[in-house]
């Protein structure tokens, strides 16, 4: 783990498997607690990070759950802006292109899920994506309250 209190930037590399997602959640949660982020903002960012990581494991890495698949997380705080960068080496995958959930199809059992991306888009202010060399870089941004 690379922690630098001066630059307010923490990073860590994880194995991109569904069983590792709770550790990613815990890393984001601990970092935000260290920065005394308000509880409601903290919950939003933690859940959005969980959903983003889950989607990367399931889509960029096709749910393979291989130990060699990696997901690097970097959390930055610039003033009241929290930025979470997620870098993976999976297939080209722009999380923003996933469709909105269809509740009726979910109820009929014809489609499962789709709620994670909806949650991410609702809970965060902005989601960016770029393909950098052989990596997907997904960026979650949220302005937090100081109070």
């Amino acid at each position, binding site marked *: 783990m690379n922690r630098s209190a001066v630059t307010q930037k923490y990073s860590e590399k994880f194995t991109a498997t*569904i069983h590792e997602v709770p550790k990613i*959640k815990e890393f984001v949660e601990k970092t935000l607690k260290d920065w005394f982020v308000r509880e409601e903002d903290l919950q939003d960012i933690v859940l959005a990070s*969980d959903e983003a990581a*889950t989607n990367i494991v399931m889509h960029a890495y096709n749910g393979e759950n291989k130990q060699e698949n990696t997901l690097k997380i970097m959390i930055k705080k610039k003033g009241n802006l929290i930025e979470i960068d997620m870098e993976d080496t999976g297939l080209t995958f722009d999380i923003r292109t996933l469709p909105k959930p269809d509740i009726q199809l979910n*109820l009929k059992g014809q489609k499962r*899920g789709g*709620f994670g991306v909806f*949650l991410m888009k609702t*809970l965060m202010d902005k989601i960016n994506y770029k393909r950098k060399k052989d990596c997907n870089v997904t960026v979650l941004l949220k302005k937090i309250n100081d109070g």
Partner: protein
Amino acid sequence: MAAEINIKNLGGGKVIAYLNGRLDVAVSGDIEEKLVAAIEKDSIKNMVLNMDKVEYMSSSGFRVAIALLRRLKDEGGQLKICCLKPAVKRIFDVIELTSLFEIFDSEESAVASLG
């Protein structure tokens, strides 16, 4: 802590399923399998999902709830959810699924609503 399940059989095809811990992608598939297996084994038609001890839920938890709702409705039964922690209830509201589920503040009122 990963989610655990305890099931209390009320008889007459009614049960209360108590979830305990976090309900996320790492455990939701296992939780869904266990609950569906219980529904099949004991011919359950009506279930109250008591989430008083669920401290965290991601969208994977919604998938479990929707799968249970679909399963029980197919059998002509009902799914009631009770005792949501404020943080979990807020996510139900954000995802606009509150109207999809019958949610109760107390276990007693959820059980009573099964008729």
